[in-house]
């Protein structure tokens, strides 16, 4: 893992009405790592993700992706940066009027100027990379199961061979077997494609089995960041309840068993 920083968040403050979600939040993401963002409900994990990808304009502070501040870039340059990352939204956000293969092919047709046949072939590869069966490409998003939607959305996020992938609760709503398969898929793809993965999750098993580092959001800032064992030792009631509660202990145990 290199020490090059691809995402740099400095002094970020987000506020909706009178409710302050983030205050003076700092975070660095390094190239090639899988960083897990955890926190209780309403601590602004998804808001942080949306701020980094430029969907939410912060009240103050700065977010740099590849050293560029997305919100101050002119439209064309911004689009160039945006092509270097892919986003998997919480509910997949597949376009319901397009088939799965067309969903994946769309960014390649629009941005890489491939013709439709080439794009469809490449889309097939991306779908297979994401672990979908051969016939899934011709289906409509409404015909897919929850796990398949996540995989198809991941394939679309990977369409332009991005350097960073943002995953918003990728395993939420999946059965444990699909979730575990998705976890190992993320690690495989990271190793093969050299991705940087920004992972927002609640799933302790995902954290233990995939993340190089974990950042805990609490009290409107990043409370702790580092390898998961270090973070779990942080002296904070929420962190202790999270990592050392019944579910946390089970996940730790499972992770240790897995390593032996």
């Amino acid at each position: 893992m290199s020490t090059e920083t691809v995402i740099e968040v400095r002094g970020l403050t987000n506020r909706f009405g009178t409710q302050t979600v983030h205050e003076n939040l700092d975070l660095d993401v390094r190239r090639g790592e899988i960083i897990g963002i955890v926190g209780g409900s309403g601590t602004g994990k998804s808001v942080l993700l949306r701020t980094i990808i430029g969907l939410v304009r912060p009240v103050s502070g700065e977010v740099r992706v590849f050293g560029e501040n997305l919100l101050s870039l002119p439209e064309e340059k911004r689009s160039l940066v945006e092509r270097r990352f892919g986003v998997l939204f919480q509910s997949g956000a597949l376009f319901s009027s397009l088939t799965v293969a067309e969903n994946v092919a769309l960014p390649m047709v629009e941005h890489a100027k491939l013709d439709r046949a080439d794009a469809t072939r490449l889309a097939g590869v991306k779908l297979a990379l994401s672990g979908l069966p051969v016939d899934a490409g011709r289906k409509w998003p409404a015909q897919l199961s929850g796990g398949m939607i996540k995989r198809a959305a991941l394939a679309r996020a990977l369409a332009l061979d991005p350097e960073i992938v943002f995953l918003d609760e990728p395993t939420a709503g999946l059965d444990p077997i699909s979730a575990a398969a998705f976890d190992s898929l993320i690690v495989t793809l990271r190793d093969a494609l050299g991705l940087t993965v920004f992972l927002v999750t609640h799933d302790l098993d995902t954290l233990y089995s995939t993340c190089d580092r974990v950042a805990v959001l609490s009290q409107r800032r990043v409370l702790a960041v580092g390898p998961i064992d270090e973070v779990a030792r942080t002296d904070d009631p929420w962190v202790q309840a999270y990592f050392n509660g019944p579910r946390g202990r089970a996940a730790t145990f499972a992770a240790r068993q897995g390593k032996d």
Partner: protein
Amino acid sequence: MDTPSLPGTVTLTRDTGGERLVLRGDWTLPFYEALQKRANELAGSLGAGVQVDIHDVHAMDTSGAFVIAELLGSSRTQALAQDEALPAARRALLKTVGDAIDTYCKGVPRKRDAGFVVMLERIGRAVASFWKQTAKLLGFIGITLQGFASTVLRPSRWRVTALVSHLEQTGLDAVPILALLSFMVGAVVAFLGSTALAAYGASVFTVDLVGFAFLREFGVLLTAILLAGRTASAFTAQIGSMKAREEIDAIRTLGLDPVELLVLPRVLALLIALPLLTFVAMIAGIVGGGVVCLATLKMSPSMFLNMFQEDMQLRQFLVGIAKAPVFAFMISVIGCMEGFKVSGSAQSVGEHTTSAVVQSIFVVILLDAVAALFYMEMGW
């Protein structure tokens, strides 16, 4: 990443040592088409013992790896992925893409047939679905009437709160827009009448024209069409989004009857609201026509009222308002039924909302035409 990118190249050399395939440059998405073309040219001519050298490839992404894997075939790609001299990341990429291709057969784009047979098929489908729709509508009317019958004598099962709430939404809230609309149509009819009748020196009968038009037809028709657009769509969207979120199923599992809970209050509300609104529309239309009469025909208000009272019988009003409950029933039943037909997605809610509006306007105009024929034959 920051070094200038060179288009990927591939060259095939043959000498005494056998065939050598040498790949160079960037094998990335921007060069995909060129690489794919070159690979297709080479694909047929590769011998079994060809040696592959990809050490000079500068950058490679999944699309580049895909071209390589397709060119070399599965077994050679896997062999290449075992090559210890390559960086680990590149081997992993080749292996992953190679594995992916093994499970992937060529993605055939959807067939888009066109022609006479397809047209016939579509006509056939449309006819069949029209019959199915009609049968469903009749079935739903039956269910609704059954629901009425089973609750009408049991006041404890009347949903009065829901009824009042729907009355407000469908009735009271529609009054301003309906009154304005009818007023303007009334004015337009009066303008038309006064111009056309002036040729015969009969422009004073504009009063009769406006009166007949609004009492018999326009009052109820305008109201029904407005409510078909405003209320049928609202019913479909409300019930449809409940259906999409499994709320209807929840109602059933709680041992309740969705027809009694959702349909009856809506149908009843419209049965009450539409006749009342029709009356509002008639008055507003006649006032609109009256204003034009006063302004352009120099008629005094008392003269207008006198003429109106002399020429209009109560029968005209009754004939018009009698249609209102029928329209109300059809509009609300169609709106509710389309809501129940929604499946899963938000897109489906939109489709059925459109369908509800189109169907209810169609039914309203059809029934109005039938009623006009009937009244004419009866001499009413």
